[in-house]
């Protein structure tokens, strides 16, 4: 039986023992889905080496080169996750001969791979199916960790790759990845400020409004079916809701005198927080989407705006100038128990992490940069330090990644980074400026 060579075994053993030392030194493990890979990844110190050979076509004719392109997209997704170090674009794993399979895995393992991803493509008419098989290359028998079949229409090959990547992340961390998501944003490429959508990695940028007006502040509903946004399409800044994947008309959500702006869906999708000035100055309101009833949460004579919900739906962070300047405050979802969160600078655009433990915001202390703070006001830290302005962060559904806008390369473009500010990278640019990014929840 093939076994990893002694050098590799020592390498793996030392990594694992180091990790276990950390686990044993910390409080007793209580995670229900832990395994050795979770522990490796949770330390943040070590990426998992995964090899993703080109996929084998087992049915149909691969005229589009999917055997090579599908795993490459998956490889980029896993690299982006910052959990994996990926080797890809190598010949497919043989499908029939068990001895050849083992020999291939042994080669990968001896090269340092901890895991291997095999893909078997079946092309049937207008459908693509991939059977993914995930192997533990640190186990002597190259244990099969999981196998899963994913099928999608043939015109959505990238989405298929994203789903495979998200399943790999699920297998190693207990939570699905975020590759099968979209980013809504505002783009000036057509002259006006139009709402746009693209895949999380920048693929397929498409305008979803074409009213030649000013469209602002897209925000996803939790079911990922709709976007709330402010638009001047009727002259005044009203709040609308659109369904970008459905043939449904745009709805007017709030069309009061004054501003109707800064929408934020509650985590359960039943309420929409927003800013209205119908009572004389900008205040935060919550709309019950089922009944149409508005409830005013704030009452200060100056500006209250930019609500963002905690993932429990029990609290709302918002921006107010009630303490002078602009600062982030937190109140409960009924508007009571207001407490101040930021002390220095000019602070706007709070966005509560979907994990609940962090609120990211934009602070002006010279230039604009992104900062983060815990909901209790502790652990204030700076995430970006130029160049240019870095603003308008939006969380990925895993709470690990952020998308934001930066003027570091001239006009505003969208960038991503990890929640600690590391791994900053540009999303491939599209014509015009891109701002106001909103990372979608995972697609259904």
């Amino acid at each position, binding site marked *: 039986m093939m076994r990893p060579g002694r050098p590799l075994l020592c390498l793996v053993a030392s990594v694992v023992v180091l990790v276990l030392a950390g686990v044993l030194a910390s409080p007793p493990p209580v995670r229900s889905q832990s395994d050795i890979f979770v522990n490796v990844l949770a330390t943040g110190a070590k990426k998992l080496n995964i090899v993703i050979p080109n996929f084998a076509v087992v049915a149909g004719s691969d005229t589009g080169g999917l055997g090579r392109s599908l795993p490459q997209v998956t490889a980029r997704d896993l690299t982006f996750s910052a959990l994996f170090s990926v080797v890809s674009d190598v010949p497919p794993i043989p499908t029939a001969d068990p001895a050849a399979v083992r020999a291939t895995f042994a080669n990968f393992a001896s090269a340092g791979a901890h895991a291997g991803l095999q893909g078997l493509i079946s092309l049937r008419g207008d459908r693509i199916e991939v059977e993914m098989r995930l192997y533990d290359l640190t186990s002597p028998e190259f244990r099969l960790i999981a196998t899963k079949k994913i099928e999608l229409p043939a015109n959505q090959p990238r989405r298929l790759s994203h789903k495979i990547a998200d399943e790999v992340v699920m297998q190693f961390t207990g939570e699905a990845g975020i590759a099968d998501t979209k980013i809504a944003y505002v783009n000036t490429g057509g002259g006006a400020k139009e709402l746009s959508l693209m895949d999380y990695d920048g693929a397929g940028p498409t305008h979803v409004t074409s009213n030649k007006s000013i469209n602002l502040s897209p925000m996803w509903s939790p079911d990922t079916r709709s976007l709330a946004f402010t638009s001047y399409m009727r002259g005044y800044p009203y709040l609308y809701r659109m369904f970008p994947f459905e043939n449904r008309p*745009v709805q007017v959500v709030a069309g009061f005198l004054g501003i109707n702006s800064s929408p934020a869906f509650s985590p359960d999708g039943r309420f929409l927080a927003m800013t209205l000035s119908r009572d004389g100055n900008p205040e935060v309101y919550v709309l019950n989407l089922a009944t149409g009833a508005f409830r005013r949460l704030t009452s200060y004579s100056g500006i209250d705006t930019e609500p963002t919900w905690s993932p429990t739906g029990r609290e709302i962070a918002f921006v107010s100038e009630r303490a002078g300047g602009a600062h982030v405050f937190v109140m409960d979802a009924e508007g009571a128990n207001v407490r101040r969160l930021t002390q220095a600078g000019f602070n706007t655009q709070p966005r509560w992490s979907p994990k609940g433990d962090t609120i990211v915001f934009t602070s002006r202390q010279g230039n604009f940069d992104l900062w983060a703070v815990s909901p209790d006001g502790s652990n204030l830290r700076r995430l970006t330090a130029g160049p240019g302005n870095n603003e308008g962060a939006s969380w990925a559904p895993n709470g690990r990644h952020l998308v934001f806008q930066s003027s570091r390369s001239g006009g505003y473009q969208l960038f991503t980074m990890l929640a600690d500010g590391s791994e900053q990278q540009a999303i491939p640019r599209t014509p015009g400026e891109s701002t106001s990014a909103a990372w979608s929840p995972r697609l259904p």
Partner: protein
Amino acid sequence: MAQRRRSALLFAVPVLALSLFLVGCPKRPATTAASAPPPTGSPTPSAAAPSTTPSPSMTPSPAAPSTAATTPPAPSEFRATDNLKDVFFDFDKYDIRPTDAKTLDTNAAWLKSNDNLVLVEGHCDERGTNEYNLALGERRAKAAMNYLVAQGVQASRITIISYGKERPTCTEHSESCWAQNRRAHFLVKAR
């Protein structure tokens, strides 16, 4: 994803550390994830899905409030006039500065002798968020409106609109340019 047993971890941790040096990595039963979920029904977002623009027609949602009975004329129906001068604001401020109060006095005097409807636009410079600047522009337009009303212009003649940072008159990234953009602008429409 296959169910993982907590007990397996608790057992595996001490055993694993030892076993790595003795016999290599521990065995665990191969797990098989659930098969792919059935295709989701409509809606099915996809890379290609948003390729068509939604119908421009709009219908009120069940939750849509009725706009106030006194729906103002569309902003496009108002016209600029040389008789009404802009007033300007400090960064993140919406109080009327003394020199600008004189401008507003002149504007108010003209409005009292010319019975037009008035649209007061509130504007901001490019710095800061769209949302905060919408609110700030609203406060600037409101401050200018309140001053005009205090000078005897009927409030019912005046509509305000905030453009936030969305419609700058000057597009350079400099304080001299920003100062021109932090403004209240006045337009009129015949009754």
